[in-house]
């Protein structure tokens, strides 16, 4: 009883949500977004790794290509009614496209509304990892840089030359 009485004078843990917002940190794993690269292009390259990593299989997408050979998702769907916010997708993503952000306010009366399509997921920002553009470091020419023009690349080989 004495203990209970003492607690009256402790700092209160209860937050008056929703009037008072919860303080969330940048790495908090909440709602999932798809980010854009520094040039404003879609970051996701439709590699399917997030979908494969997802333990509840709630990500489905279809990759497609634009006329330059740049790959992007034709559709990208996350069923948030299944998502357990484990962050495996973010960990698997080789392009920093998919990120979990500090937001959990996604309650819905109708479960169907928890199915997010690419339009709902895509944000106009680089999110937590600014500065990375996969197509600048990849070997393919997807309209971002030509063959042999990347920072880590030598000029394309001239097969007719026998010089070392």
């Amino acid at each position, binding site marked *: 009883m004495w203990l209970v009485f003492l607690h009256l004078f402790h700092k209160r843990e209860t937050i008056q949500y929703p009037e008072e917002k919860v303080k969330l940190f940048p790495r908090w794993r909440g709602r999932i977004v798809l980010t854009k690269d520094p040039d404003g292009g879609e970051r996701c390259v439709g590699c399917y790794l997030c979908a494969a990593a997802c333990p*509840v299989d709630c990500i*489905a997408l279809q990759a497609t*290509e634009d006329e330059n050979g740049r790959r992007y998702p034709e559709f990208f*769907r996350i069923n948030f009614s299944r998502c357990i916010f484990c962050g495996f997708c973010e960990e698997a993503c080789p392009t920093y496209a998919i990120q979990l952000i500090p937001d959990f306010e996604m309650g819905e009366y109708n479960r169907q509304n*928890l199915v997010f399509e690419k339009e709902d997921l895509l944000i106009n920002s680089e999110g937590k990892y600014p500065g990375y553009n996969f197509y600048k470091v*990849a*070997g393919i020419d997807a309209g971002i840089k030509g063959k042999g023009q990347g920072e*880590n690349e*030598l*000029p394309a080989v001239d097969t007719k030359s026998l010089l070392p």
Partner: protein
Amino acid sequence: MPTIFIDNLPYEVKEGKNLLETCLSLGFDLPYFCWHPAMGSVGACRQCAVKIFKDENDSTGRIMMSCMEAVKEGLRLSIADPTARAFRKQNIEWLMTNHPHDCPVCDEGGSCHLQDMTVMTGHDYRRYTFKKRTHVNQYLGPLLNHEMNRCIQCYRCVRFYREYAGGTDLNVFGAHHHVYFGREKDGVLESPFSGNLAEVCPTGVFTDKTLKQHYTRKWDLTSAPSICQHCSMGCNIIAGERYGKLRCIVNRYNSDVNGYFICDKGRYGYEFVNSVSRIAEPLIRNQPVEAVNETALMRHLEGLVTQFPLVGIGSPRASMESNFALMELVGKENFFQGTNDDQAYLERRMVEMLQQDGLPGVSLKAIENADAVLILGEDIWNTAPMMALAVRQSVMKTAADQAVQQSSLANWHDAAIKELVQDKKGFLANITVADAPLNKLATISAQDCPDNIARLGFAIAQVLHPVLPPVSGIPENDLQKIQLIATALQKAERPVIITGSSSCSETVIKAAYNIVQSLRATGKDAGISFVFPECNSMGLALMNVPSLENALERIRTNSDCTVIVLENDIFRHIVPEKADMFLSRCKHLVVMDSLHNRTTEKAHVLIPSATFAEADGTLVNNEGRAQHYYQVYMPFNPHIKESWKWLDKIKKLKTPSAGRSALHPDECLAELESVLPQFENITGVMPSHQFRINGQSIPREPHRYSGRTAMRAHIAVSEAKPLQDGDSPLTYTMEGYPGIPPESLTPFFWSPGWNSGQAVNKYQQETGGALRNENPGVMLFKHNKDHIGKFITDYPDPFTPIPGKYLLLPQHQLFGSEEMSAYSETLSELIPDMVIALSGNDAKTLGVTDGAMIAIEKNEFSYPLPLKIRNDLKSGIVLVPAGYQAMPYFPWGSWVKLRV
């Protein structure tokens, strides 16, 4: 059997093998790149290093390439040795110094041998800080994508393309670490086996371009074991689906049939399944709303099948199950082959020869192992591509075997053997109507008219078996050829004769028959292979029912019939006037098919059939091998059903009390076997639909299949129960038996650490050998070794051209002549032009030059085409591409007039 020691444990192994294949056969994981079980070793990639010790006291050992070392009694090697491991890891690290950062956008990813080997060796961190070498890519045509940066210089591509498949337009250019694998300049790859590069290349340099259009990773595919539908070879394939669309076809290893490869028609022909001209709903024509649902359709059909006599038209491209279901519905006396008289007769003759006269039909594997091949009148490059590849292997192997006999080399020592062989070749005689691509390989080649080809054949048989009456009037310069061919066949231990129906000539088939029987009479183990036109032509011919013309006759006498046409465009089998007459006389015309064509246009009732990817079925290939294909996916569209399921429903309308009718393919086959004894044992092609392993079904989806709870969430967020077809032991889930299933039920090759198709190693009893518990299909012919049928002595007269008339013969094209693959958009780019070919002499007589429009005429039939003069043709013959979509059926094998 020698004993070798691997990491100090003794193993009994097979003699004559190299250490790499031996280790793999024993189940060890040993990385490799350049070695290929079908192509042998060259020791180029340095990846398969192991340590070999002199004896048990040697603790230093030396690093050797396991693919270049032969098995020796008492040999001691170590795979786990730290230096050997470090070597392998270092090798990958070097390969990776220039490897692009591409996996996320690389189509190989998830089934990449390089990824697997990198993980296997443990290389995981890039230490090399210098820049990567890069390459520009080439346009290689519509079938393959080229991304040269990813190359690891293993040389597999050129070895396959040039040496294995005989292509010339892919090569290696440049020097040192600049070597480049591609064409001299951009252009379409010429070889019809180029698609195999996607599987042969261990990296993503060559990838399937059609898959790229709807790219899906291997782990996301719902796959099932299937059989290629585009020629009579019956190659085994794996077909993969995602989101209701067929995505790709890859090879399914079968040691007796196609081995490690398939042709491009088989790999890329699948697009017809996704075609926009698929029949999507049942239609009842000539009523205000034509599209109907199943209930309305059945109500309508009830009247048609109960009140009118039935006639059924079968199909050489429909499964045994469907053809048999139609026969059961209409009754055997009312069931007709969907092929014309001439074709049906030729096929019947070939079946009889195999069935009654004891001709030993041989598999593709046996052709590969033949030591002399004679082809009579069949352009197998175009009608049976994988057979042409097998013939090429026979020619190369025979030369290699002869070379090896004079040295101590093992037969897997590819580079050394090639050095020794130089350009020596095994024996191949290719006697065809027109110049054929295989002639490049042939010791003897000739072009002639079918009757003369037959006479040549009869003369060869006569030399082999002199009791036969001689063939009179053989031209002087042919005599030497005949003698050469006969001697080569006589000298060979395993000669094979190949012929088929595409020269439209019974005499050619008879001549081939005589040759094989002559060889057998002299105690030779000779084999024959007949090429049939379509994937189930053999199955239909085995049913032994009358031809399409007989159906025509039936309709002429009683036009008050309901005619049911099963998956058959009859305009491909008879001339248009006859087809039109036939179709217009049917009181009711019910057509079941998957794609719209000229016959479906005329149908009164149209029923949407499933394609091979959406169906279970059994096909009989050209040697009489029955093989089963399994449903890859259930179509989203509920109207699309397997023809045999539709027919079964229709049968219930006719005889509601007909008791149990077959509901599953295995039950259909059991019924087929009991009604038609020639199909004895065909039930052995598949296990019962109730077959389970430890109570578990076999999953069509790999355990990493993704998106299960999201793929259909946009339609309804609550997941539906997984689909169930119940027709086979395969399920539409990722749950089920996790181990290696019985061979014919293998939906994909995968093994821990082996994500690429190379995982097939783990499924084989020994690398390159038969699969574990292999069921390579059921052979429907029992070969009686001692029975040698009667010889044929009614030789044809020499071919004499009739002035003003020409013998019309079909030119089969690899792409374009087969019905379904021609619907594939990608392949349609590669279809050669429609031309009519005449010899130079004939063109001169007609006074025409290249490009002139010439009409082919017979009775009311007339069809104009531009001319192409071909000097390989004999005078008196006119050659026209067969089976093109826009073209009608031509009266093949008959005499026609030409109008300039």
